[in-house]
């Protein structure tokens, strides 16, 4: 690194300047540090430095019962908590071999898609803010607030919902919950039109995003990039279609793709995804079946409060599950879901006890962030900001 120092009597007339962007910087979305080597405003090399938000969540799982792991998953990717809930629940359920009732599956899809809207709205607001369109942020937050209210209605929490539990859901729907969602989702596509009105044809927006942050598709595949980024480069890769889970195969939706692979294409893909999510939510609302919201598995699922007060066995099971947890058969499982950011997967190894032996997450933000140097090197500082925004990473998701 010696030759990269700023010009000084010792280094002579070098033209390079090392700029330490972050961990405190308005546009790194959290605590990402990027060491940029600059020639004027052109980026020669970029080295992302992660780990400032390392929380040790993966290790933490090993000290907790399986059921106690759900709240941890909320905190990994705090903008797509329900996707994480869902992925963790699916992985444990595969180990347990649980059968999930249809009502729970529909609600899971509903919630996962609302999470996608939530995450994409935050992305759009902050991305536009980074490029200088300040007002977009507030318009997006207006809709996000509605989604958070829905989450609060269903789970009692706005962000750390822990609503999707192993074996089903935490609670059944609240009174009027589905009506609230329908009211929101009927109005939502017009809101997306409103955002596009402000940005889609705006020449400054196009100038700042078109042809910026391009990565070839092959490089993306090598780097492990998934989600909207890879779909914007032309590959229709979506876990919801390729390996359907939670009954996604019952829903009718498209995978939006673009060929350009630049920031503008990613923007368009995400905007289309919001529309597709709205379609899925409408279908889930229309087809929502009646029935139980939890799997029928007395040794794993906590019994209803009503039964606990009348039946001896229910009380015993409740005591045993809460104090000792439930044993999970020996084995390992890897389940991937499509989180708003890309392919999210949990890999759980069980030694037959009530606590996991190892939990590993394949988080989309981490894979996507690997493409950062490939994306920004050779561009300008302003391009790196646009590129960073288009990756839509969450540092909690990167560092775990």
């Amino acid at each position: 690194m010696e030759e990269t120092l700023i010009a000084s009597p010792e280094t002579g007339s070098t033209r390079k300047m090392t700029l330490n962007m972050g961990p405190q910087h308005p546009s790194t979305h959290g605590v990402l540090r990027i060491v940029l080597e600059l020639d004027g405003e052109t980026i020669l090399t970029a080295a992302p430095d992660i780990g400032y938000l390392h929380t040790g969540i993966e290790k933490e799982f090993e000290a907790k019962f399986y059921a106690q792991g759900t709240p941890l998953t909320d905190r990994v990717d705090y903008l797509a908590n329900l996707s994480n809930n869902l992925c963790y629940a699916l992985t444990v359920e595969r180990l347990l071999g649980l059968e999930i009732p249809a009502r729970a599956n529909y609600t899971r899809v509903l919630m996962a898609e609302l999470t996608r809207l939530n995450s994409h709205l935050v992305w759009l607001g902050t991305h536009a803010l980074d490029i200088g369109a300040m007002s977009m942020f507030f318009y997006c937050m207006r809709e996000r607030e509605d989604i958070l209210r829905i989450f609060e209605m269903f789970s009692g929490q706005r962000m750390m919902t822990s609503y999707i539990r192993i074996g089903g859901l935490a609670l059944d729907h609240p009174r009027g919950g589905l009506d609230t969602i329908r009211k929101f989702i009927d109005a939502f596509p017009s809101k997306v039109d409103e955002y596009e009105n402000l940005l889609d044809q705006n020449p400054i927006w196009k100038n700042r995003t078109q042809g910026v942050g391009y990565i070839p598709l092959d490089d993306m595949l090598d780097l492990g990039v998934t989600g909207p980024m890879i779909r914007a480069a032309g590959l229709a890769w979506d876990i919801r279609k390729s390996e359907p889970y939670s009954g996604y195969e019952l829903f009718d939706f498209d995978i939006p793709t673009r060929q350009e692979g630049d920031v503008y294409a990613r923007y368009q893909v995400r905007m289309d995804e919001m529309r597709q999510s709205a379609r899925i939510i409408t279908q889930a609302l229309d087809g929502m079946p009646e029935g139980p919201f939890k799997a029928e598995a007395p040794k794993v699922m906590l019994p209803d409060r009503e039964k606990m007060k009348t039946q001896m066995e229910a009380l015993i099971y409740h005591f045993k599950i809460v104090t000792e947890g439930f044993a999970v058969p020996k084995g390992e499982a890897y389940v991937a879901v499509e989180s708003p950011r890309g392919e999210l997967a949990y890999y759980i190894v069980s030694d037959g006890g009530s606590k996991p032996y190892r939990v590993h997450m394949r988080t989309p933000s981490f894979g996507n962030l690997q493409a950062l140097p490939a994306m920004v090197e050779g561009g300008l500082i302003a391009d790196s900001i646009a590129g960073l925004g288009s990756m839509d990473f969450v540092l909690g998701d990167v560092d775990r």
Partner: protein
Amino acid sequence: MDYFLVSLIKIVVVFGAFMTTLAYLQWVERKVLAHIQLRLGPQRVGPHGLLQPLADVIKLATKEGVIPANVNTFFYILAPFIAVSLALISIAVIPFGPAIELFGVRTNLELTSLNIGVLLILAISSVGVYGIALGGWASNNKYSLMGGLRSSAQMISYELPMAIALATPLLVLNTLDLRQIAERQGGGWFWNWTAFSAPPLLFIAFVVFLISAFAETNRVPFDLPEAENELVAGFHTEYSSLAFAGFFMAEYANMVTITCVATTIFLGGWHPPFPAPYSNYVPTALFWFFGAILLFHGLTQPARRWDRFTFPIFGVLSLGLGAIFLGATFFPVVGQILFPVFWFVAKVGLLLFIFIWVRGTLPRFRYDQLMRFTWTFLFPVALGCLLLTGLKVALFG
């Protein structure tokens, strides 16, 4: 002696009004932006946050002024002074109204009558960038340095189209004296104003000037030197306390000055958009309309608890202002000051609103895109405008 006293009074009045405008422009900007963005803006200090500028001044003045290590202290301290003093000078040559006669003294509604006012403004505005460039360079901060560099590059790009756009109406008006420029546009309807007088050439020049003005004042979409999402705070990253306030004030002072120049040269200065006896009722009508709305909302549907009191109070004030303007139609002594100043302020206010509106709407240019835009689009357009106007003047007089 008379001249000295009159000048002194004018300086006090103009300076007081200018400083108040700067302070409240910031309040207006926050309010307008807030309402664009579904927020309320300042609400806590005073009714509707009206004392917020005062609170900001007290906060900035009482803060510790930190001088970071290894800065070039001389230039570091000098830069905000350059920025703010140069930003405050130009207002001196702006005429706010016609020559008036008060208590037997005849004087112009401006601080100094220069016969080269336009040149002075151009000169001052090009030196103004030194404050930013020096501040960025002296701060010993890489972000500041890049902010300073960007502003220098930006200045080179927008200065030329701006000067050419400013020169275009001068071909028609044939003077460099801002007072004469304003006077020649008066006496009739708004199509006598420069911007509308030789359609569409001078209107294009006006738009080019306005776009360059956004760059000159470092406003969105050209706020590259302080692009906070890229350069943290750009050239003023390392500044705190009153030094920061200096840069802040300079930005707003530049905004007011440049809109005043645009009003004087392109929008007919203090002249109303249609002839005098009728245009004099416009302020009264506006203020009464505004007051009536405030009274209606405050008394019948207050959104917040205090609106029941604040809205009617401001409504009555507005009605009173309207009454003053109505009275002024009967007393020419007062009217000769009030009406020109009203129209001048109204036009400047409209342009300032456009500045704020754009900030709430548009994303930011990239540094090389700004240069490409100014050199390959703005500059040829301004030049073409100038040449065609010259041709027109040469052929048809």
